[in-house]
């Protein structure tokens, strides 16, 4: 899924965009627990979270996850955006809840990550 397509589906605001022409996100992982993200997510997946602080970006950075989507109307503060920029991470924000966000992404073809993958 392209970033623009994701933004349209979720009525999301694109806060930073480092996607390339060939960026196509196929898998997503949703959690407010960063240790669970570190345990299960992989580098090509989208990180969906309602947690709004710099550790979200740090977690994405450690995993080489290039895209972070904030849900439930969370607007990341300037420092979070700055950290995302430093690490070339694309950031989006949607007002939808996490459940609805994931549902819409799955309906549009995105897959989840199984823990035993």
């Amino acid at each position: 899924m392209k970033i623009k397509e994701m933004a349209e589906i979720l009525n999301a605001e694109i806060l930073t965009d480092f996607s390339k022409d060939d960026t196509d996100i196929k898998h997503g992982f949703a959690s407010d627990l960063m240790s669970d993200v570190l345990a299960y997510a992989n580098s090509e997946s989208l990180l969906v979270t309602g947690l709004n602080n710099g550790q979200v970006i740090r977690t994405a950075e450690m995993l080489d996850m290039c895209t972070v989507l904030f849900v439930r109307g969370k607007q990341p503060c300037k420092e979070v955006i700055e950290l995302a920029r430093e690490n070339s991470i694309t950031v989006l924000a949607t007002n939808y809840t996490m459940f609805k966000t994931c549902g819409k992404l799955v309906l549009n073809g995105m897959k989840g990550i199984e823990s035993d993958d």
Partner: protein
Amino acid sequence: MTESFLKRYSFDIVANDFIAAGKGSSTIKNLLKSMGIEANLIRKIAITSYEAEINIVIHSYGGQLHCDLYEDKIVIVSQDTGPGIKDVELALTEGYSTATESVRELGFGAGMGLPNMMKYSDDFEITSSSDGTVIKITILL
């Protein structure tokens, strides 16, 4: 230190500083990247070092994070000044956590820190007393 030891990089980690938390691991990650180490290995090292760094911030009075480079491996050493882990075996159980509610609000304290370090390392050593905890995470290159 064995003959193949090359260099140590050290970072001071301050207790309860959640703004700076992760800076040390970020620097280690960029350093390894500039050395041309394979992305998958860097990711394993970054995850374990970040979990170790967060643990120092959350649970200790402060400490240091070291990245020891060897010809054939990277060893992440986390060293703090206490108060130590009361029951190490229990702390290694997935989901077990002593983190406070305020730490959980920051997205940590899920009880996956030590299990994650074990999961991604080729060798994992932990010793803990009231004087502090030392964790050694080895990742073979």
